[in-house]
């Protein structure tokens, strides 16, 4: 339990002991009492889960996933990659074609959704339009046969938690998108579930509100110590909110790692391309020496890189370099580092950064981002420069 709490503090900076919480959400003992022995084990586990809707295509292929209690895990991936399907299997609205899903160590494949006790936030909020905000929040308590007085207290507490206490008598239609979002959140939390699933809950909000809500959701999740599985196709959202991110593509988890690892050490080209901006150059492995390799690009140039999933000389590879790790100032490069000729095609002044589009080794879309600093030179189109990078920032991935 202590371990889990410390981990949460890293993310939200919230001083975590029960007395600091605005109310005793964990005091019920459900959250911590029942799962205490399980803390070290997986709280949610997917074991070799497969899913097919039509018997022809596997939408989810051999999914294995463990998440500990209290973790904020994001499923990130392009549209159609099977994220929602996974979430729905966990919630019980879809059945796994093969494999097992365990919650708190118990297989839940045969437990109907309403007995799973999992909170859910939907993309369109799914607030019941014929009920007021108060009635919406009271609903999960009513079906649990909680007394009226208790219900009122809990509803009020949950509304205060999302700062919507004054809206208890409104109808969902009388609320703005952001307010509906908060109510949906409060409704998913009001019955104190240990696990909350959110399927692109911020998809319909504008950028500013989305960023504010991102913070509030993570903050709440960590304060309450709940386990969250969050689905999004927005990589910024995934990076800023999560303890760990599972990158989905085509029904397969490509990589599952904390945000910084994901960004800085992508396991394969898909993750590298999908997370953040990324430059790729195609080539063939020329030599491998431990954790450094040399790649002969298709243009004939030789560059240094870190081998990630290449193993032998002669293998085709895509090397990947983040735009902000590209260096145009030779003084900042290591002695003997390989450099490349580049032609400036476009220079965009973006305020805090300069964004330069270059032609490098036949690639016209090579981007370099440089910080707007006094010693930073502004380039003009047509200029010829030398660029380079640290071998550790340049990763040789699968082609």
């Amino acid at each position, binding site marked *: 339990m202590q371990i889990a709490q410390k981990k949460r503090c890293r993310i939200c900076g919230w001083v975590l002991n029960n007395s600091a919480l605005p109310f005793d959400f964990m005091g019920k003992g459900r959250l911590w009492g029942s799962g205490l022995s399980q803390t070290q084990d997986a709280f949610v586990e997917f074991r070799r889960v497969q899913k097919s809707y039509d018997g022809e295509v596997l939408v989810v292929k051999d999914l294995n996933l463990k998440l500990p209690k209290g973790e904020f895990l994001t499923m990130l991936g392009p549209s159609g990659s099977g994220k929602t399907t996974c979430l729905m299997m966990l919630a019980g*609205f879809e059945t796994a074609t093969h494999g097992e899903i365990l919650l708190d160590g118990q297989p839940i494949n045969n437990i109907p959704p309403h007995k799973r006790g999992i909170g859910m936030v939907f993309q369109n909020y799914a607030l019941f339009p014929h009920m007021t905000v108060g009635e919406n929040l009271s609903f999960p308590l009513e079906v649990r046969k909680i007394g009226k007085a208790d219900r009122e207290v809990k509803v009020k507490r949950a509304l205060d938690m999302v700062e919507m206490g004054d809206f208890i008598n409104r109808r969902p239609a009388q609320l703005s998108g952001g307010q509906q979002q908060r109510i949906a959140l409060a409704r998913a939390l009001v019955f104190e579930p240990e696990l909350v699933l959110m399927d692109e809950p911020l998809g319909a909000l504008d950028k500013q509100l989305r960023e504010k809500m991102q913070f509030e959701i993570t903050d709440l999740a960590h304060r309450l110590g709940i386990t969250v599985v969050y689905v999004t196709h927005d990589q910024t959202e995934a990076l800023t909110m999560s303890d760990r991110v599972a990158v989905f593509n085509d029904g397969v988890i490509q990589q599952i790692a904390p945000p910084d690892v994901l960004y800085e050490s992508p396991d394969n080209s898909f993750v590298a391309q999908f997370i953040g901006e990324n430059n790729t150059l195609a080539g063939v492995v020329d030599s491998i020496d431990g954790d450094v390799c040399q790649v002969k690009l298709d243009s004939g140039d030789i560059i240094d890189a870190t081998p990630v999933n290449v193993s032998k000389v002669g293998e085709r590879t895509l090397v990947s370099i983040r735009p902000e790790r590209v260096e145009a100032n030779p003084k900042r490069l290591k002695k003997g580092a390989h450099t490349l000729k580049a032609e400036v095609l476009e220079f965009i002044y973006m305020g805090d950064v300069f964004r330069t589009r270059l032609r490098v080794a036949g690639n016209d879309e090579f981007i370099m981002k440089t910080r707007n600093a006094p010693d930073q030179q502004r380039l003009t189109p047509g200029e010829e420069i030398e660029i380079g990078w640290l071998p550790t920032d340049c990763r040789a991935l699968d082609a």
Partner: protein
Amino acid sequence: MTETTGPLLAADGTPLKRKLAQSLFRSRARAFGLTLPLLAFIIVVFVIPIAQFLTQAVVDDRYSSLMPKSTIALAEWDGVSEPSEALAAAVVADLALAKENKTIGKVATRVNREKSGARSLFTKTARRAAKMEAPFLDALYERDKKWRDIEIWQGMKVASKKYTAAYLAASVDRKITADGKIVRQDEQRRIHITLFQKTIWIAFLVTLFTFLLGYPVAFLLSTLPMRTSNLLLILVLLPFWTSLLVRTTAWIAMLQGEGVLNDLFVAFGIAGDDARFSMIYNLTGTLIAMTHILLPFMILPLYSVMKTIPPSYTRAAKSMGATDWTTFWRVYFPQSVPGIGAGALLVFILAISFYITPALVGGQDGQMISNFIDYHMRGSLNWNLAAALGGVLLVIVLFLFWVYDRVVGIDNMKLG
């Protein structure tokens, strides 16, 4: 900022409010202009004829135009004392005139509606009217002692009024006495109220049955994939492809004593061959056939509403711990109410004025008010009463509509 006091002005100096009203008026006028042809069409072929017809419920100048002299004399008569000689003279003169003009039949029929037996009395008296001499009252008494019955005269007084509530009164089993009081109709003539009640009851039952049968179907349709549901919707609409008459006759073939259903019952031993169910030419037949015919009108609005209820609502409810039933009753059903409202109203209003089906399969006790209106239109030729019955039906429908609006709310209805 300029310190403008007074109203905001548009660029050309006119007040902004007026400018806005002008531009709004123009766009509304254009929108109205587009509906004008339809509006004209409706007014000419629908509103005017109906209004014209409905006025017949309160306007009847048959007596007053054909018997002008006695009309004036009857107006002066107090309705209780013995008729005066002058009145008798006027009546005799009018009867002679009517006999000559061959209009006596119409007059006799009119008075007969107020007092049974008047028809024969009038035709009999009219044959001699031209030869009668003063004192006319005694002459009338002599011709037929029925003239001594004050009710005959009272009936004439009621009939002589050009504007009369008599038909409206008759349509709700009331009659108007000569001194203007409204009293209940004679026992054996009280048929309309029961009929209205039965009509409303049948319409209600049909609405209920179509709802009970249609709701699950619409629900199923709304959950199926588009391709399948479209195919099934065509099946729902299939009955519309055949004429109403054909469908109704098909039910006769199905339900009659020697019909398919009874044959099956007998074959399976559910009914004895000598004790076949009578499912047609009675209320049962009307209900079965009408329910079948009106089912699509319930299913379609229900389906169109249910289709728009996102599955995430039911999922949300279940994720919060609601059982299937609670989810349905607390979350799904309330959101389908607009469809129920639309479907029920549609079916009810269609059912309350149903005509062909009860006429064909209704037998004696499956008849509805429309069948009576038809009878008075074509059988008894009492158009005034037909108009009055139609008017009352219209008022009932409007009243129920109003009640519906108060209870459910008309804006809480979705027709498609």
